[in-house]
């Protein structure tokens, strides 16, 4: 059992650190939830991609470095420690890309992944519907067979980044007669600017259009944009969901960097003893999350499959994130009320953590039933 990285991994860390030191913009970019900020972040993705830093764990043929899980973790630690910009294409890179690499065709990977890596195509997630949130399998949007493809109709909501993004991916009902709700669903990619798509941005708590409603009226999708077999959408989506809650959506690097910023803020404010416990808990929580992730990565690399433990993960990081940012705002005192700071932006983002990617209530049910073996029952 050891925590030491190899010489090669250390060299990789040094290379990443040097590149980031030379390229991270000295001033923070405007919020990526604004039109101006979205454009600036897209340009940043292009800059990352030019030196193949935008998706380091992907195969090299699609613009990655094929660098493996440990180096990905190392890269993420360096990335967030360097206070580099948030990733505008995160939905694509951490959710759709692993899905395509596992379930897509080589043609789909070659067509979709390189422009994703370069920030040319920014992806939105189109999963939730007005009547299908935690109960995702009850979704009603449908895809009907058409010559050479499918026609999508229905309504999606809470689509992150859809206000400014180019394309989206999601589940659609292709067999309304399937015996169970989660059967007869298919996984499709579509163009947010195709005829028949209406995007209505929704302001989140701070008013920024961080997500949107999508109204789909007979939107044509060619066969080549179906992922996997028709009817296999649920199974494919669940493997994406495990990714989302598990290793790749929230890397320890983000929380280590945030906890470090919090500790610095606390020290700058004179290390007030009454907040010491909360700052310490954030620092300890980030370290716990890092080591938990190392353990999971080690098991994964030893050939174990990671299962419902991603639910432990999701509850932990989402609650850590909120506690950490609440502590920061409290330390800032009256400055903490200002909406135009990085702390405020990150705080508002953290508040969504227990809701998206499967609410924490659903995750606790999964932990209780699948990890502790408690009986299923009334909700």
């Amino acid at each position: 059992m050891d925590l030491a990285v190899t010489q090669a991994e250390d060299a990789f860390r040094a290379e990443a650190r040097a590149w980031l030191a030379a390229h991270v913009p000295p001033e923070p970019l405007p919020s990526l939830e604004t039109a101006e900020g979205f454009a600036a972040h897209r340009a940043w993705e292009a800059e990352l991609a030019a030196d193949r830093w935008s998706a380091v764990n992907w195969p090299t043929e699609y613009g990655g470095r094929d660098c493996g899980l440990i180096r990905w973790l190392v890269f993420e630690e360096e990335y967030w420690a360097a206070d580099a910009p948030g990733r505008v294409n995160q939905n694509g890179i951490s959710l759709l890309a692993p899905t395509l690499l596992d379930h897509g065709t080589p043609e789909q990977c070659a067509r979709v992944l390189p422009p994703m890596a370069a920030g040319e195509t920014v992806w939105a997630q189109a999963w939730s519907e007005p009547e299908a949130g935690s109960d995702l399998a009850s979704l009603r949007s449908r895809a009907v067979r058409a010559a050479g493809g499918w026609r999508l109709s229905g309504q999606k909501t809470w689509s992150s980044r859809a206000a400014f993004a180019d394309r989206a991916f999601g589940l659609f009902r292709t067999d309304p007669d399937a015996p169970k709700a989660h059967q007869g669903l298919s996984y499709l990619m579509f163009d947010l600017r195709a005829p028949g798509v209406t995007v209505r941005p929704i302001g989140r708590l701070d008013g920024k259009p961080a997500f949107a409603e999508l109204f789909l009226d007979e939107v044509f999708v060619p066969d080549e944009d179906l992922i996997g077999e028709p009817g296999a959408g649920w199974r494919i989506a669940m493997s994406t969901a495990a990714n989302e809650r598990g290793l790749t959506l929230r890397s320890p690097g983000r929380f280590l960097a945030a906890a470090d910023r919090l500790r610095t803020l606390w020290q700058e404010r004179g290390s007030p003893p009454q907040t010491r416990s909360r700052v310490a808990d954030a620092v300890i929580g980030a370290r716990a999350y890092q080591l938990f992730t190392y353990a999971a990565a080690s098991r994964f690399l030893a050939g174990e499959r990671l299962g419902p433990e991603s639910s432990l993960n999701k509850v932990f990081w989402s609650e850590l994130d909120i506690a950490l940012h609440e502590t920061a705002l409290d330390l800032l005192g009256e400055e903490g009320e200002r909406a135009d700071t990085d702390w405020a932006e990150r705080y508002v983002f953290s508040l969504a953590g227990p809701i998206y990617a499967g609410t924490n209530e659903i995750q606790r049910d999964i932990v209780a039933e699948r990890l502790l073996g408690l009986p299923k029952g009334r909700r």
Partner: protein
Amino acid sequence: MRFLLDAEQRAFADSLDAMLTAADTPKAIREWSRGEHTSGRALWSRLADAGVFALAVPEAYEGLGPRPVELALAFVELGRHAVPGPLVETVTAAALVREPGPAKRLLPALACGESMATVAYEGSYALDGDLADVRLSLAPDGLRLAPGHEATRPSLDPARRLARLRPGGELLAVRPPVREALLWARLATAAQALGVGLALLERTVAYVGQRTQFGAPVGSFQAVKHRLADARIALEFARPLVLGAAVTMTPADVAAAKVSACEAAYATARTALQLHGAIGYTAEYDLSLWLTKARALRTAWGTPDECRADALGA
């Protein structure tokens, strides 16, 4: 990097678990609480045979150490089975006695289980100070072999017996490695607390699966499930901190492990008590053996506040 136990380490933990499962520890714990030490001594000797106390003793003094990862694994099992006695203190003593003379005299007996040690700052309570064969006192002028102990005081955990050490006694070292020994004390306490929390969770999950109310197992109610899920989450995130601290042995990592394992165990104890209802509030039901230990370990070898300060390096 391979942050994963190897087969030998897993087998070591499994064999301790099997041995302690077969040993009827609740009976030994209750006897120990009454001051009857025969069964506890016998258990101690079997743990020593398995190598537990040799892990902090250097090979030069007939030990196997230092092996903090194996020690942490062992203490998780000791906590899971609520083994009584000055376990942490014996390990801490082994890390504290480094002068060749005293080490040669005291450590081989600790490693092989012939003697039990207790350690305390002068004026503080020493665990099982009335019973230990070696009583080490951390005095202002160095490490001393205490000449005796004051009256025994009850602990909130009936299996822990507290007594202050008498001042004076033979001076063993002027500059003992107190900081290093404290790392071992905290690591072992953290691991023990983690084990206590795991046992509380396991017993409570079993109980709510059997106990029915309103015609359904209590464990099928979401309010119950979510409390247990939170306990599992807290314990699962304390575990890598404990093992990570054993790997690095830095003061900040060890303090983080201590605070997080003890808080997780204590929160689990509260949950276990609540979900057992009144039966959990009784001394006759075995759950109490773990409930009270979770409370006692929380402040042993560093309060949550002290450990949080050390985790921040502030």
